[in-house]
């Protein structure tokens, strides 16, 4: 016979104001199996917890029900307390009489009756709770970092500096990401390359970091502490071990007019190329779509001029399997474009801005490349259409961002600051030019940020016009900007030489596909979801996977670096032990009942169900049954609902527990 203790919390007055807690304690106390029942002002407080612990010991309680706030709030707290008193933590359940009762009902009688029902249900449930031993799993102390931008680089360096091996996978031929494309950074205007490239070199030279560039994640299997990751290393056509990075191949390549994505397609590159001179690794890659050899079977100039004989036209994509214990996802962002979107897409383009067909209407990243000393113009601000220096330049903020109609309602967070930076860079480079900025709000929270924005106006003489632009159109070699100054209440028209759009930050293309491989969730924009917006901002709900940088939401550099270090710290916490414990809410198979139809296996999203042979002593096969790998099982219970004979059961949510609750009603 169970000896259940029920503890009713007043939560100050939060519960007791509408629920007659004494009556609840009294009525619940009469339920069969309840040995002790009491109420207290703050059950979660230290004295409250002591009350629970003392009662367990003095009353020899077998199970505990705490009727208080939501289990999402304090289930862990009370389970810990119960454990400290010597009971298995899973013999404690919480009845939610605050969020689900006292806060949502005004009528005291109704709320009290409901609270009694809720507690009664939990009493019946807890009777069926079983002792669940904590599950321990071994931890492989190697980390995988996906994405080699500043977030991935920072996370990889932090983890590696702590002495753990790191696998860093980058899709592009070089690490560096978007930060390597930037000219200067706000609010200090220090050169991005100058602070970025040393870190890239650190990665290349770090003995604990294994770098896979031009590679993608193919498959992720396993679970926290024990992932097996298959990486596809795309054929580079250049042997990395032989190549010395001398660059002769690039100077001799006859295909010289290929738009360079790194330069936002305004600069050109060869078919064998490194995206930018400071690339890490400094090993070129052959772009097979544009290479004459691959297109016609003739040429081979690079092969002829390569001293070490590193060119390998026969190279194939290779698959590499790495075992890791933790994964940091840092795939970064992509920029929204105003181009027309395919029909049916939730995101729309900007027809009113010409759908990207006006050549001198560019985006912020293109402006970065123009302003960058290592960019295609050598740092000169020149129009893509005719190479002239724009004297009237218009910046438009919130293009795509905060535009529900276009399908994106969030703020991209960094555009106000980088536009202010752009006006400064422009003013430094074109002394006789004038910059105008159309904006709705200036959002500049951050250390020295607002001062920076003010400086662009007060010292660098940018003209800020509060109001969105309705339309852009080409008129001769000018772009007519039809705007409005809402402070004055008058329409504004500017004939600009160049227009720079602060386009929205979006997750990388294919972010959803990667998330599905990783088994992590994402929001409707495909930004990855953190486990808790406030308290677990760098962890995914899927254990062992962590987030860093703009793949989780728009972020500036300092924030990205902080999050990367935080993710690294989380990984190191995990790696600080040889084994880790996990909540034992996992499915178990009752082999006697299982007939091996594997409906459970078909519905398991985690691949946690395996086939297991049952043999007699002579080794004859009796039957094949399902087996749930407790390390992989996430505990959703879909298998149990699907199993016709209910031969698989989810611990903590067994049919017995649930039926007990329904029958208590």
């Amino acid at each position: 016979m169970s000896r259940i203790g029920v503890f009713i919390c007043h939560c100050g007055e939060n519960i007791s104001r509408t629920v007659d807690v004494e009556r609840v304690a009294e009525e619940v106390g009469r339920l069969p199996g309840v040995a002790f029942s009491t109420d207290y002002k703050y059950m979660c407080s230290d004295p409250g917890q002591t009350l629970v612990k003392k009662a367990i010991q003095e009353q020899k309680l077998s199970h505990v029900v705490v009727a208080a706030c939501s289990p999402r709030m304090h289930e862990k707290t009370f389970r810990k307390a119960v454990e400290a008193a010597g009971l298995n933590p899973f013999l404690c359940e919480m009845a939610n009489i605050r969020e689900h009762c006292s806060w949502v009902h005004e009528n005291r009688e109704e709320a009290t009756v409901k609270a009694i029902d809720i507690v009664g249900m939990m009493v019946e449930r807890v009777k069926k709770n079983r002792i669940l031993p904590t599950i321990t799993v071994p931890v492989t102390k190697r980390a995988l970092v996906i994405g080699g931008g500043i977030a991935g680089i920072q996370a990889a360096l932090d983890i590696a500096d702590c002495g753990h091996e790191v696998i860093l996978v980058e899709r592009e031929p070089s690490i560096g990401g978007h930060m390597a494309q930037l000219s200067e950074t706000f609010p200090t205007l220090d050169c991005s390359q100058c602070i970025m490239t040393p870190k890239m070199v650190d990665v290349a030279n770090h003995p604990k970091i294994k770098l896979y560039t031009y590679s993608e994640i193919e498959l992720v299997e396993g679970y926290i502490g024990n992932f097996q990751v298959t990486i596809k290393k795309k054929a580079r056509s250049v042997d990395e071990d032989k190549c010395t990075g001398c660059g002769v191949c690039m100077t001799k390549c006859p295909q010289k007019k290929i738009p360079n994505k790194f330069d936002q397609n305004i600069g050109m590159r060869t078919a064998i190329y490194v995206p930018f001179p400071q690339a890490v690794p400094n090993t070129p890659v052959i772009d097979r779509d544009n290479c004459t050899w691959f297109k016609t079977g003739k040429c081979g100039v690079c092969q002829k001029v390569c001293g070490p004989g590193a060119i390998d036209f026969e190279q194939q994509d290779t698959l590499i399997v790495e075992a890791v214990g933790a994964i940091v996802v840092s795939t970064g962002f992509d920029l929204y474009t105003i181009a027309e979107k395919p029909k049916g897409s939730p995101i729309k383009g900007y027809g009113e801005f010409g759908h990207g067909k006006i050549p001198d209407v560019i985006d912020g990243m293109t402006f970065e490349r123009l302003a960058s000393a290592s960019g295609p113009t050598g740092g000169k601000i020149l129009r893509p259409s005719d190479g002239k220096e724009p004297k009237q330049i218009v910046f438009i903020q919130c293009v795509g961002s905060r535009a529900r109609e276009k399908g994106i309602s969030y703020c991209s967070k960094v555009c106000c600051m980088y536009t202010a930076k752009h006006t400064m860079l422009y003013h430094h480079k074109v002394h006789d030019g004038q910059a105008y900025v159309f904006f709705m709000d200036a959002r500049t929270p951050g250390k020295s940020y607002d001062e920076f924005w003010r400086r662009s106006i007060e010292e660098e003489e940018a003209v800020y016009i509060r109001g969105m632009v309705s339309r852009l159109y080409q008129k001769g070699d000018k772009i007519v900007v039809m705007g409005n100054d809402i402070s004055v209440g008058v329409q504004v028209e500017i004939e600009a030489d160049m227009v720079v759009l602060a386009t929205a930050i979006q997750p990388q293309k294919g972010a959803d596909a990667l998330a599905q491989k990783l088994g992590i969730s994402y929001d409707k924009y495909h930004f990855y979801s953190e486990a808790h917006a406030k308290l677990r901002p760098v962890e995914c709900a899927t254990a062992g996977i962590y987030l860093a940088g703009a793949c989780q939401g728009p972020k500036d550099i300092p924030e990205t670096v902080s999050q990367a270090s935080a993710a690294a710290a989380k990984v190191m916490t995990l790696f600080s032990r040889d084994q880790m414990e996990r909540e034992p809410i996992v499915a178990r198979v009752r082999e006697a009942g299982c007939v091996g139809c594997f409906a459970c296996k078909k519905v398991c999203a985690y691949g946690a169900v395996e086939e297991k042979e049952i043999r007699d002593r002579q080794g004859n096969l009796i039957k094949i049954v399902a087996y749930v790998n407790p390390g992989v099982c996430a505990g959703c219970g879909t298998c149990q609902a699907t199993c016709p004979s209910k031969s698989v059961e989810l611990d903590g949510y067994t049919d017995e527990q649930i039926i007990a609750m329904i029958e208590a009603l």
Partner: protein
Amino acid sequence: MPLTSQPIDTSIYATITAAIRSEASRLFTAAEVVAIIGYAAARRVGSAQPVIITDAAAAETLIFTEACVNNLAVYLTKAKKEIPKKGKIGIIVKGCDLKALVGLMGESQLKREDLYLIGIPCAGVLASAVQPATTLTTETIASKCCECDVHLPLGCDFVPSVTLPPGPQMESRYSEEIARLEALTPAERWAYWKEQFAKCIKCYACRQICPFCFCEQCLCDRNKPQMVETTPRPAGNTAWHIVRAMHLAGRCAGCAECERVCPMDIPLNLLNRKMAKELKELYDYEAGFEINDKGPLTMFTEKDDQSFIK
């Protein structure tokens, strides 16, 4: 629309019987199979019963007639341990029976390579209420045969080469009854089923005969917790039949054995056909046509209908 009774041509059944006998004999002689599950004549004139034969001599006992109503697939599941597992087992299957086998293969209960399938081109079998020696007509034919879409089983190892004579047009008994019930109000439907389920004596013959009720421990027999009341009272009966229909949804291919064996004449296959119809409409899924890794209720697409969800 009731049609006047018309005879159905079953003259090919004699040829089929001869063909399966010689094929069975050949199989044993060539040691291709260790046993064959088929039909043999039973004691009452014209009746048939399932039989398992293990040698060529017994091949002569095999028959196929309009009385061969049983779905023999069930002997491969519950009774399979009785058959020595030393080689291939031959089985005689009508189109409807084959659908059950296909389903069982999809659910890892059977392997195609362990079976030798002798397919029967079938013009129909007799309804269970009819005396065995009756001629097959549009009236005496089993309901399931009225809406049969697999007179000729596909993908078998051996099929007697006969030409199925064209049959007369038949009423769609299940579809019409489903449509009739759907047109009623919920209360009227409830009254209908209440009366039907009230008859149930919980003999579980429906469960015994069903090839898909292959669980070793049925959920409905459990008492810790008791998910479904086990006593043959209306509440427990209703729950049993609902759970049964739900468990067969997307799997049952309509051999209608449950209905045939029900001593209380509960129209059990009606529930199964209704579920099949809904799953066809919802997910364009029909059971029994190909070996599927996943059934309609163990898979999903992101675009599934959710008009019923707020």
